[in-house]
């Protein structure tokens, strides 16, 4: 299991559990994200609070999840990114594709 999920009223707070978001767990992450969308979440708040390290494979899975979510009117927000992880997303401009918030509370406020 990659995600720890707490879902209330269609809002899934999903915390990535591993510290290393990499090729080793990218496929499982993708499957769990797609399941969340398929099972009725309308908003996924994806927390990176544990993630110290992320690579292109995991980012690729994140994009696949977004591609699956968008036509189903499901939003994916990213929260609690460590500076190094956020910098990498910014480097390849994924910050222009995903909405990024400081924490769950800020993301919830923005979703209202």
């Amino acid at each position, binding site marked *: 299991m990659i995600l720890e999920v707490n879902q209330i009223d269609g809002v899934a707070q999903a915390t990535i559990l591993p510290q290393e978001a*990499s090729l080793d767990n990218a496929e499982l992450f993708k499957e769990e994200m797609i399941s969340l969308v398929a099972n009725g979440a309308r908003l996924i708040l994806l927390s990176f609070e544990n993630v110290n390290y992320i690579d292109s*494979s995991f980012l690729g899975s994140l994009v696949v999840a*977004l591609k699956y979510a968008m036509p189903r009117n499901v939003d994916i927000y990213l929260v609690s990114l460590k500076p190094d992880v956020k910098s990498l997303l910014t480097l*390849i*401009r994924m910050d*222009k594709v995903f909405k990024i918030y400081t924490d769950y509370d800020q993301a919830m406020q923005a979703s209202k």
Partner: protein
Amino acid sequence: MDRDLDSVKVVFKCQREEIPGTVGICLNQIKEKTEGRSIDEAVLSRIKWAIAELLTNAVKHSGEPESALTIKIGADELVLEKEDSGKPLVLIALDKTQIAWPLENPLSVDFAIYHNGMDSLYVRTHQSGKAIFFVEELPEVLMPLLLSDTSEHFGLLIMTKAADEFTYEYDPLKKINRFMCLFNLKTN
């Protein structure tokens, strides 16, 4: 290129679960070799991302049980060099041209290989057979085409944008692939 490069060779198993640990080993080596020097944290982050992508590339594509990453540290620059004896690189350009090493007609030509609406990734072939990757940044658009592509190109994009120079060459005599990321350590 610096004359006196301090060199460390890290041999790693091409297994996905080995990547994070190997990145850590490489970073520790770099910190040890550059102790007392003030290397910008942002540069260290860029080095870390490039190492991770070089290792990922080896795991995905080398087809070998082991690869080697050599870290060369000079006064002004740091070079990551990953070698493996797997299949030579093959890229498909956006216009569907196949670019396969060793190049049949090594000419200096630019090929666009990825475009996401904001960044265009190019590879420039060279008479020597070397490939130089570079990015052209475009004005921002609201919804980039990032969503239309796969992680294969994210890896190349990360290495190209993270490093000050990112190149690939194939040594047909030794049958070795060599990816190289160069970082300027000098702060302006």
